[in-house]
């Protein structure tokens, strides 16, 4: 009984803060827009009892979801988000793996410092850090000035308000989520495994492919999901760094909610986004489970 009580706390927490809000969003996605407060119908009227509930239920339909399929903006936004999230994940992996590898091979006394450097950016607001990139990437920004001064370019580069800036922003923001799981996998790697591989005839490079990489696999998978999942629904970075051509589902969602005040369609967009993300989330959980088993 005591154990049950202990377990129930996080579940109640999830119930209150995840499942209930999701059910509310799901309900709104099945409603119609209305010029009212709240801006949708039907609303459940408790005073009318069972008949009221029946009426409320009959007012729900999947019209908004069908709407999403008729306007190509939505599926284009989903696809574009998918593309941006995928590329960002690959970029973050290409940047993050060498960092994690370097950290795991660094002398013991250096590691806490290196770890600190990875975590340090979290001490500043995410919003401020993304704003800082505006100052770096703009036409008159630090990066262009530097490149102009050393004579590498003669015309300032247009980076801000393009997809490039969005990639930079996402990779920058989510890099620690890529580095840390890979680092923890590599740090556990016993040096003598690499020596054994060499002893059995591997070159350094093939020892890396045959031993290091397979053993870091679960860290790589975990890191990739930790970058991909939030990048998929990212709103702040494309809003601040991306241009008018940057199409991401997070932005569409925001516009539906706040510009169009079309809560039902916005909710439908959110529900579909969640359904899309369920696949990688489940895969991520599976990977975590496997990792726990291997660690035993």
């Amino acid at each position, binding site marked *: 009984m005591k154990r049950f009580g202990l377990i129930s706390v996080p579940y109640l927490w999830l119930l209150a803060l995840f499942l209930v809000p999701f059910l509310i969003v799901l309900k709104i996605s099945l409603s119609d827009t209305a010029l009212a407060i709240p801006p949708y119908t039907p609303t459940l009227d408790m005073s009318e009892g069972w008949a009221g509930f029946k009426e409320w239920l009959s007012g729900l339909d999947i019209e908004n979801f069908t709407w999403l399929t008729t306007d190509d903006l939505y599926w284009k936004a989903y696809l574009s988000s998918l593309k941006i999230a995928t590329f960002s994940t690959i970029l973050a992996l290409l940047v993050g793996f060498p960092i994690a590898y370097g950290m795991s091979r660094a002398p013991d006394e250096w590691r806490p410092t290196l770890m600190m450097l990875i975590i340090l950016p979290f001490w500043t607001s995410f919003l401020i850090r993304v704003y800082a990139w505006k100052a770096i990437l703009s036409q008159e920004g630090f990066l262009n000035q530097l490149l102009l001064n050393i004579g590498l370019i003669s015309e300032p580069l247009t980076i801000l308000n393009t997809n490039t800036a969005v990639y930079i922003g996402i990779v920058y923001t989510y890099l620690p989520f890529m580095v840390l799981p890979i680092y923890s996998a590599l740090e556990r790697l*016993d040096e*003598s*495994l690499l*020596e*054994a*591989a*060499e*002893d*059995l*005839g*591997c*070159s350094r490079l*093939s020892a890396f492919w*045959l*031993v290091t990489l*397979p*053993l870091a*696999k679960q860290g790589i998978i975990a890191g990739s999901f930790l970058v991909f999942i939030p990048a998929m629904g990212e709103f702040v970075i494309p809003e601040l760094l991306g241009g008018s051509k940057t199409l991401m589902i997070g932005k569409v969602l925001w516009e539906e909610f706040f510009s169009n005040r079309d809560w039902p369609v916005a909710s439908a967009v959110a529900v579909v986004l969640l359904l899309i993300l369920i696949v990688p989330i489940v895969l991520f959980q599976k990977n975590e489970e496997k990792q726990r088993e*291997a660690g*035993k």
Partner: protein
Amino acid sequence: MSEAALATAPAEFAPWEDAQATPLIRFQNVTKRFGDFTAIDNLTIDIFEKEFFALLGPSGCGKTTMMRMLAGFETQTEGTILIDGQDVAPIPPNKRAVNMMFQSYALFPHLSVAENIAFGLKRDKLPKDQVAARVDEMLNLVQLDKFASRKPHQISGGQRQRVALARSLAKAPKLLLLDEPLGALDKKLRQDTQFELMDIQEKTGTTFVIVTHDQEEAMTVASRIAVMDHGKIIQVDTPAKIYEEPGSVYVADFIGDVNLIEGTVTTSGDDHATISWAEGQQDLIGIAHDEIPAGTRATLAIRPEKVNIATERPADMTNIIHGKVMDIAYLGNMSTYVIETPTGQHIKAQAANTRRIRRRAITWDQDVWLSFTDTAGVVLTS
């Protein structure tokens, strides 16, 4: 035994006594420094083919460094290492016909037992059927056929040890290095595995070099033992010689239990020396490898099991010590008696418990006489 049988009995394996034999491994004035620390100090030694050679010493004595230089993970600072007549300094570990069994076993956790064993064979680009055949052969050798598809974390420590052995033997190396191979096993399993190791070494005819800090293990498996300390080899000999005729107090003390009796040399011949060691006690005689000038400080090393204990003064012995029983340690098959001499020295004697303990003749505080033969002890000056 008939004369014919005697004639066909195999000659004892002792290539180190044969001046014609060419060693497989030669260390020539090898020194290895890590910064200021000298791990190996001007070391010269030959190891022969098919030997089971043990490097024995306390941790930090340089034995592991020697092994890592043979594997190619370290390069000597000075001197030459030859394997099969070839200077190995420029050869990287993956190009040496030397394999190593790691102390941690270093089994690849993501590969099955069979894949672990096949790992080295696949690097040689052998055809698939040959790899499979060799893996089967190895699995058979270490009796793990049933566990081929298990992952390392799904088998026991003893089985993991055998996988590591099979993997390092799979490529049929000229030389197999074993780094504390049995360190992680419990005592019973360790003893069984020691015999298994010897058996496999004999079957495969591979030269084994084993690093260990466990003197019993070295004694059991090795054809020769090199006792090391501070980067130097103190003595290289067969287990029997190391034990019976240690060349120094360090070796005598390191291997097994020993009484060290300090005294002054009174007379000395080619092969024996007499020391005077305590007032009121008779001088003791032991074997000596060289003539020692009279008056030199020396130590007589005598193993407890070679000391006889009696309640009566033995008549026909030259080496006699008189004392009182201070302590008796009952070990089951034998007992160790600690005797205190009138001058306060402690000397151990061991006797087999051939009788039931209730009927033992010797008890605490009893006057006893210890005795040993003229050739039982060794007089050492260093």
